[in-house]
């Protein structure tokens, strides 16, 4: 029996809240497990620094991910370098694992378009802000790969709120019809800003929505990085292998919790209880992987301390690098609107550039 033959509410688990093994531990060597743990620590530390940068006025609105490291890092670890990631706006941790430098993520939230300009060998799509609108892109991109006879897989991230959107339906439906190599990864963090999961759908699970599209659906404990890794790995394998005797697309519902606010502009105390937050914090994906790794003798105090200081240094370096980027030249406003700048846009730029020369930058920039 594969993970895809379970009941939709039969949540896949590997580690319980205390890090005790309750399922099949995936076949990962010690270095990979430590690396996974390190990435989760890195994502958590990055997240805290990013929120504080916003509070200090050094960054714009930022969507925090704390609590969701198990789902993000666990799933991204299952991707091959050639596979593609189609993120929403909260997948900083997943994108990091797939090769997107932290500096890029910081730049994007610091208002630089260049943040989305991933290095050419990093198969990560730009951030998609409108909810669920990236779902059809993931299907289309995977479809293109299939039509060309390539065997890459595509993982698309979105939240529980996205499953109420039409684009979720249309994107997943196309994937089912054309049997595209797409893994739809739903980060069900319980809250779409202030609206709870129960207000999105009467369905008992989000995973069961797969049934209507004729594709596989599976629910996994999103606070359990090893379970997430296993399920995503199985879904990607199935997506890549066109001979598999199953639909290539999969819908994964990773049940998890957003510890912090929707964004730095949101105050979650208005709509949810501290007790709820505390109960989910006891399921912390980082603590549970750490407990497991300590129990297995793979991690000890010394190793954890090393990791702690190395992630602090890495994030500090990324912040330095991002903050040292100069404000882009206004020419950049125009540069990529079209492959070749139409004459009218050239004129608009030149008119502005002449006035800027005359009046100086101070006339245009806020203090």
């Amino acid at each position, binding site marked *: 029996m594969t993970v895809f033959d379970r009941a939709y509410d039969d949540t896949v688990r590997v580690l319980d809240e205390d890090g005790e093994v309750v399922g099949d531990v995936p076949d990962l060597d010690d270095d990979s497990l430590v690396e996974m743990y390190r990435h989760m620590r890195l994502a958590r530390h990055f997240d805290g620094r990013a929120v504080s940068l916003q509070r200090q006025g050094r960054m714009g609105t930022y969507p925090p991910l704390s609590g969701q490291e198990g789902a993000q890092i666990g799933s991204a670890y299952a991707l091959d370098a050639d596979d593609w990631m189609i993120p929403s706006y909260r997948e900083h941790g997943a994108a990091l694992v797939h090769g997107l430098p932290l500096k890029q993520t910081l730049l994007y939230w610091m208002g630089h378009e*260049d943040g989305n300009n*991933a290095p050419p060998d990093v198969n990560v799509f730009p951030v998609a802000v409108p909810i669920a609108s990236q779902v059809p892109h993931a299907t*289309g991109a995977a479809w293109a790969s299939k039509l060309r006879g390539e065997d890459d897989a595509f993982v698309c991230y979105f939240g529980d709120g996205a499953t109420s959107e*039409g684009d979720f339906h249309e994107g997943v439906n196309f994937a089912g019809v054309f049997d595209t190599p797409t893994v739809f990864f739903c980060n069900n963090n319980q809250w779409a800003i202030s609206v709870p999961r129960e207000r999105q759908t009467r369905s008992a699970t989000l995973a069961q929505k797969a049934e209507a599209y004729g594709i596989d659906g599976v629910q996994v404990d999103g606070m359990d990085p090893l379970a997430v890794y296993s399920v995503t790995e199985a879904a990607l394998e199935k997506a890549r292998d066109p001979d598999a005797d199953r639909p290539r697309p999969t819908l994964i519902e990773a049940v998890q919790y957003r510890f912090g606010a929707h964004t730095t502009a949101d105050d979650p105390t208005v709509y949810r209880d501290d007790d709820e937050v505390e109960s989910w914090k006891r399921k912390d994906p980082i603590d549970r992987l750490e407990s497991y790794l300590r129990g297995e003798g793979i991690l000890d105090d010394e190793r954890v301390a090393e990791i702690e200081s190395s992630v602090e240094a890495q994030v500090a370096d990324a912040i330095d690098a991002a903050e040292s980027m100069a404000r882009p030249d206004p020419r950049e406003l125009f540069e990529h609107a079209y492959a070749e700048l139409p004459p009218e846009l050239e004129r608009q730029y030149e008119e502005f550039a002449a006035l800027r020369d005359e009046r100086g930058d101070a006339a245009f920039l806020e203090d």
Partner: protein
Amino acid sequence: MTETQNLTLVQAIRDGLHTELREDEDMVVMGQDVGKNGGVFRATEGLFDEFGGDRVIDTPLAESGIVGTAVGMAAMGMRPVPEIQFSGFMYPGFDQIVSHMARFRTRSRGRFTLPMTLRAPYGGGIRAPEHHSESKEAFYAHEAGLKVVIPSTPYEAKGLLAASIRDPDPVIFLEPKLIYRAFREEVPEEPYTVPIGEAATRREGDDVAVFTYGAMTRPTLEAAETLGEEGIECEVVDLRTISPLDREAIVEAFEKTGRAVVVHEAPKTGGLAGEITAILQEEALLYQEAPIGRVTGFDVPYPLYALEDYYLPSAARIEDGILEAVEF
């Protein structure tokens, strides 16, 4: 000697798709009824049989899904040519058009480009049901990052379509369905392009410049001929691309005549006529001898067909508008 065929506009579109499918194996045609059925207007007739279901793809009936999956395909380097069966049904896909199709290049600093062409028949005059007759081209012209092309002759339809498909930027290609079968023209069988962003002068005249595009080109020319018999000579300029506009040609025709009228079937407020008027104010105010006229659809929801002849600018309304500009 180039072989030609005598084709209607919709046949020329079909021929353009056919030629480009042969030229570029990364191109696919996709949409509702485009495959086996050959399109409700026959714009894709026979393409499914020749190129197969992986190149000429019948999709689920879902406009956002059609546009959104085409965005994903194009981001991976393919050249999808999605069809929306009527432009009145583009709105479920509107978010994909403005949030993604128009923005991907900018958003990724040019890493991801979307060489896709979204085709849709548009405009009124065919006695169609509700939602099948609107002209909402101004929505798309307002959206930076898109190009918007509207052909009005069979020869140019094929060439403009080829240019759109080969263009590195996303193109909204609106086909004036009123003239899909209105007349025939010799259309070369071989591939060729007609450049995007260039207007065409359809008639020379010194008294007044009349700017139009799409299906309105015909009644405008008809009005110009009638007025010509009375000694009023109209310069008729067919814009062909409404984004980016050929400002140079627009200004040149105006400087020659000092008077202008813009004709489109889309409603007046917020339409292209306002934009063209503003361009002329900016660039050629001192040439202006009369208020710039706008002969357009009314600012009302497009009517059912019992009233559509009153709604659409007719040769009579166009003549009247031109006379106002000339006699001012």
